[in-house]
């Protein structure tokens, strides 16, 4: 952190010296670019942990912007052990004092290590860690059929939610609840189901003629946006959580992948205008569609709005697929980060889960958008795709 501030100070001074007139603007731009993909990680030294505990700590911290170096080069020293329960401490080398010391018991060793990682993130970054969060995703067999799964965010502990042996798609969490919406062809048509994970009960929320897919739940859980073709073309519709009060929001020729702004005011989606793929947003109560400026990112699809409202992640297709991120206010062009598809934000608004790999053999991977560090998740059976982070 101190290093980062020092770097920025250096840039500030250098730019100010070079050109006082433009200094303000240029610094702002430099800071933004620095933030996406080029922010240096926080160097830490990990000591004393072995096996599963070490693995969990490394994974969790790496995808939240930490790097592992020798004690000499480290800013923080993380020391501890996983034997007989996780015990750990963090020492700030600059301040020369211990800033965290804790032991964990109960649950599994993995869970204890995740909890320690969360405490490290909270202590050093002053942010809630993602170590104990969940994801949902789709696992597909070569024939095309698949099931919806839920797992820890690193892919461990994967459990099937469905057992229909049919085509499934696009799971979406109800914010803050153990419940999903997803698409299933179980009734011979792509329909949207609501599925309570706590009761195991499920029901069809949208089973209209034509396409019913891409459910996305509003931040307050009261509304669901989705793609329906019942009026003659795939468009964005919105309804209450139980499927009532259905309303059409768009009338374009081909829309897909709606997502909500965290304040619930906008739905961002992929569309086509003059045969070109674009990202656009529409007021959730209905209104004029506004097109987003995604200059430099060809064929944008699959937008996801970060929980802090600042960023929109999406997939671009230029030969292959890349994960891109841009400021939600359109103030800067998108930054392409890594090859992959289907980005979904973690609750921390800095980590994304996405899928990557060869066609028919996708795996989930977790990316820190600021340092561009990413790691592959533990694989579930089949091709893993369309991850959705519970938040």
């Amino acid at each position, binding site marked *: 952190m101190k290093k980062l501030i020092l770097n920025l100070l250096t840039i500030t001074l250098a730019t100010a010296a070079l050109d006082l007139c433009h200094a303000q603007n240029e610094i702002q731009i430099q800071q933004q670019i620095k933030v996406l993909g080029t922010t240096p990680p926080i160097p830490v030294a990990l000591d004393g942990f072995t096996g599963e505990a070490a693995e969990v700590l490394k994974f969790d911290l790496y995808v939240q912007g930490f790097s592992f170096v020798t004690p000499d080069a480290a800013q923080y020293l993380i020391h501890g052990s996983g034997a007989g329960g996780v015990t750990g401490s963090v020492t700030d080398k600059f301040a020369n004092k211990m800033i965290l010391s804790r032991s964990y018991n109960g649950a599994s060793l993995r869970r204890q290590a995740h909890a320690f990682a969360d405490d490290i993130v909270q202590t050093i970054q002053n942010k809630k860690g993602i170590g104990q969060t969940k994801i949902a995703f789709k696992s597909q067999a*070569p024939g*095309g059929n698949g099931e919806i799964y839920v797992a820890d965010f690193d892919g461990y502990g994967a459990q099937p939610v469905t057992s229909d042996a049919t085509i499934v*798609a696009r799971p979406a969490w109800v914010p803050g609840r153990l419940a999903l919406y997803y698409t299933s062809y179980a009734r011979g048509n792509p329909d949207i189901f609501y599925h309570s994970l706590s009761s195991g009960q499920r029901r069809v929320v949208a089973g209209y003629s034509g396409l019913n897919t891409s459910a996305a739940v509003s931040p307050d859980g009261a509304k669901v946006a989705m*793609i329906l073709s019942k*009026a*003659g073309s795939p468009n964005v519709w919105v309804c209450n959580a139980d499927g009532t009060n259905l309303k059409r929001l768009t009338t374009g020729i081909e829309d*897909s992948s709606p997502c909500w702004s965290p304040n619930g005011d906008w739905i961002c989606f992929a569309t086509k205008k003059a045969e070109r793929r674009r990202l656009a947003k529409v007021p959730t109560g209905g209104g004029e569609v506004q097109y987003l400026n995604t200059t430099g990112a060809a064929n944008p699809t*699959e937008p996801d709005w970060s929980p802090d409202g600042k960023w929109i992640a999406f997939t671009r297709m230029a030969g292959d697929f890349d994960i891109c991120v841009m400021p939600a206010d359109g103030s800067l062009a998108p930054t392409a980060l890594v090859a992959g598809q*289907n980005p979904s934000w973690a609750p921390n608004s800095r980590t994304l889960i996405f899928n990557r790999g060869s066609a*028919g053999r996708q795996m989930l991977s977790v990316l820190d958008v600021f340092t561009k560090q990413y790691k592959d998740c533990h694989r579930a059976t089949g091709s893993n795709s369309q991850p959705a982070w519970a938040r």
Partner: protein
Amino acid sequence: MNMNKMIFPLVVALAATLASTGCKKGFTKVTPLPGEYAHTPGGDQQPPTLPASQPMVPEPMPTTTPIAPGTTPTAEIDLNNYNQDRAALAAYTVHFKFDSAVVQDKEQANITSVGQALTADANAKLLIEGHCDERGTEEYNRALGERRALALREALQKNGIDAMRIKTISYGKDKPADPGHDEAAWAKNRRGEFILLHPK
């Protein structure tokens, strides 16, 4: 504010009354006087010297129903009530250009053949499956597949087939015809398949 609220309905009612009674009075007052030609066109008191001409029969015009893409609601067809005949129309599978749902001119013969099959069997219905190649994200392709199926439905509509006889389903890129990963495979996978539905 309260005054306005009370007065507004009164004004509306008054305006409506005036409008209706005014119209009636206008018509009842025009009573032709005896001995004068009525100046109404086509009136029956024209001078008798003019020869009667052959009445002109307007040439029948074809009735047209403009089909704007993406505006015909999808049909409620329960597949459980039909047997699916995949073989009957398998020869007429339509292929699309990359990332396009436009039915190409060269596919018209296939559309015509499918239309003829539906015309020949009034009880039959049609299922159109829309498919994509793998070069597109999953949900994007699910929308594109649906759009392709709907475009084929619109093409059949133009051939006189009732859109309510046609159900569309998109499989996105989940059911490729060819599992390969090259242009030859992709060209085969960007397609619309026609399945004839016979009532059970």
